């Protein structure tokens, strides 16, 4: 079975607990059709880069699974029908990902910090 990575965005005014519940529901669909969930990630409430349906934020969830294509199609169909899902995208993966995805990784070399350093150097 191929590996898939699905990310979906849920509307902002839905609670985090409800998003978890939705994630569970979708995973259940995948598993019930013979799939296996490899990874789930809650990215939390994230700011959009642009306004989608008059909303500026949304709950992002990532589902990585090893399941038949039919299961993904069914899950996408349900997402399409669910009005709370703003956007979804499923991508076939070549190999399972390692560690948490790049979105969750925190970088301590913050831009602001770098700027401060540069300013100090200029002053000195």
């Amino acid at each position, binding site marked *: 079975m191929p590996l898939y990575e699905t990310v979906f965005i849920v509307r902002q005014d839905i609670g985090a607990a409800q998003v978890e519940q939705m994630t569970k529901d979708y995973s259940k669909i995948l598993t019930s059709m013979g799939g296996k969930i490899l990874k789930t990630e809650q990215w939390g409430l994230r700011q959009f*880069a642009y306004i989608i349906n008059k909303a500026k934020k*949304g709950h992002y969830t990532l589902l990585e699974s090893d399941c038949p294509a039919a299961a993904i199609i069914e899950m996408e169909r349900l997402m399409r029908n669910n009005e709370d899902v703003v956007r979804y*995208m499923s991508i076939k993966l070549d190999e399972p990902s390692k560690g948490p995805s790049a979105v969750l990784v925190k*970088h301590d070399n913050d831009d602001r910090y*770098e700027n401060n350093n540069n300013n100090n150097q200029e002053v000195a």
Partner: protein
Amino acid sequence: MARPERNSDRNSERSERPNAEAEGAEAGGEKKSFFKRRKTCPFSGKDPQSIDWKDVRTLGRYVSERGKMMPSRITSVCQKKQRELAQAIKRSRYMALMPYVRTEMENTRGPRPDRPSYDRPERSERPHRSNAV
């Protein structure tokens, strides 16, 4: 008899535009230093960076201030990887991790990248000197 004439023509041409040459050399120097910073493709070769559509921080480096993709002739990404990169940026845009367009207003929030603007290049910075010899 024609040859010496031509030579003299060339000489006169050269002497006519020393300023242009000097300007070009300056701009060329800047351009060269910009290119020299990273000569090889960062996504291939020895321990390459992976292209991931979720990695906004990496993708952001290959996008101009406006949010347009940078051409590979500037970023020196190889053709194969440039295609992958383009796909990744488009995915990331669709999922609203990256903007399709970034306007000037939004730009003032964050620090500007330390590279010459690709969107509105100044003439002197990026002269097309490949044809003129």
